């Protein structure tokens, strides 16, 4: 590991100033991803600015009736929060589906959003990778890609975003708040991760040096009936090969409102807006759910070894929506 300077950020503006002055610096929060990447040589910061002790560890009500989650709230505290569990159960379920008890106690909300892909070529510095070393190529295209993207990928990169939490946040219309040396800003979560195109190394739309300070959730009555389901290669403590975050409001047998997002299928959490449009106003039946999933997945472009994800996502979507439908009927 390369040697590095270490500073505890005194406050948000101090943290931002330290990063602004040093392009080789990185923010350190829970460290569950960054420390690992420093060990493997993928990340080689000259300075770490520790932000974990900043006063961003609260979950508070917002004037519009939503919630604002501080960036250094741990995954554990987020999942255990009564307001999240009661009003946005999909978010608690998504967070609890990720990592292990130990890692959730360390990891933070801001860090979770900025974690890097687990594509094995990205984390192996002896291999080419357009995300780590732009222009060097993508061995995943002709190599090991059974868990890579089927939606929104490009010839440059087919890696998937690993977060479960972000999939739920995408479905919930979350907004990301940040600060830079120039002041504060915000981005809808849906716009946090730009399309891959030819620049897979550009992973977020945040300005350089930005520190995520929090994530806000709008009041979203449809989220009261919501859930997250994750498929993985073992029962627990593994990244998704496909996941669905969904919220459904059914009245008189008709879908009145719906939120749907897919995980482990793209370089970002995939908000399934095409499917949502197909759902809203349609009869709440398994046929409607299947047609909506199929409409979304028409854009899928699977690789030779990940075609299984198309029927997987279709069936998972139908299953989750049917479960919510049954829950509504109880």
């Amino acid at each position, binding site marked *: 590991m390369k040697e590095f300077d270490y500073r505890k950020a005194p406050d948000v503006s101090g943290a931002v100033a330290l990063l602004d002055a040093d392009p080789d610096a990185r923010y*350190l929060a829970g460290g569950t991803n960054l420390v690992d990447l420093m*060990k493997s040589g993928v990340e080689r910061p000259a300075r770490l600015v520790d932000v*974990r002790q900043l006063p961003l560890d609260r979950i508070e009500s917002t004037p519009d009736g939503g919630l604002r989650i501080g960036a250094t709230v741990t995954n554990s505290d987020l999942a255990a929060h009564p307001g999240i569990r*009661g009003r946005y159960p999909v978010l608690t379920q998504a967070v609890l589906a990720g990592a292990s008890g130990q*890692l959730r106690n360390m990891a933070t909300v801001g860090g979770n959003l900025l974690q890097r892909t687990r594509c094995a070529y990205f984390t192996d510095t002896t291999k080419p990778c357009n995300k780590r070393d732009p222009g060097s190529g993508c061995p995943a295209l002709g190599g090991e890609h059974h868990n890579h993207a089927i939606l929104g990928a490009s010839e440059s990169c087919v890696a998937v975003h690993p977060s479960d939490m972000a999939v739920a946040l995408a479905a919930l219309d979350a907004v990301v708040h940040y600060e830079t040396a120039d002041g504060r800003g915000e981005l809808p979560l849906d716009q946090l991760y730009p399309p891959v195109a030819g620049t897979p190394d550009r992973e977020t739309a945040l300005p350089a040096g930005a520190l995520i300070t929090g994530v806000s959730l709008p009041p979203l009555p449809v989220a009261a009936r919501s859930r997250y389901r994750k498929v993985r290669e073992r029962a627990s403590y593994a990244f998704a090969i496909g996941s669905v975050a969904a919220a459904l409001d059914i009245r008189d047998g008709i879908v009145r409102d719906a939120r749907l997002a897919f995980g482990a299928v793209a370089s970002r959490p995939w908000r399934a807006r095409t499917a949502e449009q197909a759902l809203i106003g349609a009869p709440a039946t398994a046929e409607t759910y299947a047609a909506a999933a199929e409409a979304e997945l028409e854009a899928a472009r699977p690789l030779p070894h990940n075609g299984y994800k198309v029927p997987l996502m279709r069936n998972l979507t139908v299953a989750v929506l049917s479960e919510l439908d049954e829950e509504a009927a109880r």
Partner: protein
Amino acid sequence: MGLSTSSVITLHVNGEKHTLPVDHRTTLLDALRERLDLTGTKKGCDQGQCGACTVLVDGRRTVACLQFAVAAEGREITTIEGMATGGRLHPVQQAFLDLDGYQCGYCTPGQICSAIGMLAEHAAGWPSAASEDVRPAAGPAPLTPEEIRERMSGNLCRCSAYPSIVEAVARAADADDASSAADTSAQSGEAAA
């Protein structure tokens, strides 16, 4: 601004203070084992995947391999060496002994530290991915074998002693219920919530 690649830090481990110079690259795991001679905490994968290095930090279970020692300064660290009180084993330690919750023993300190942290989380009402309904109105999830397996999934056992580990954790949970679990606490979590 000058760069410095080492610091003199004070670690609080098992109720004692240790002041030592560290290269910033030193993980908490290496500081405990190589500098403080607390070798009960084991190095398994060294990349956060096996749980052998689980220790409590401010009462919560964490993996020591993915934390830099310099970042752990000022936090209360409890390792397996700090779990017994006055020569009396912690109820979780005793249950692992009584029920053979191990084979080779390498993952055991991590399993025990993790179980102690996990029981505190459960006592604080935290749901898990195995919980049927996470909404507060559903009430706390009973600590079934399925819940124990899910909540302990961050600790791997290459000998696959899982059946006895699950029994030992269940026994400790019964014996111990609220009392010692509440001590090690997810209290800071309640405060943050």
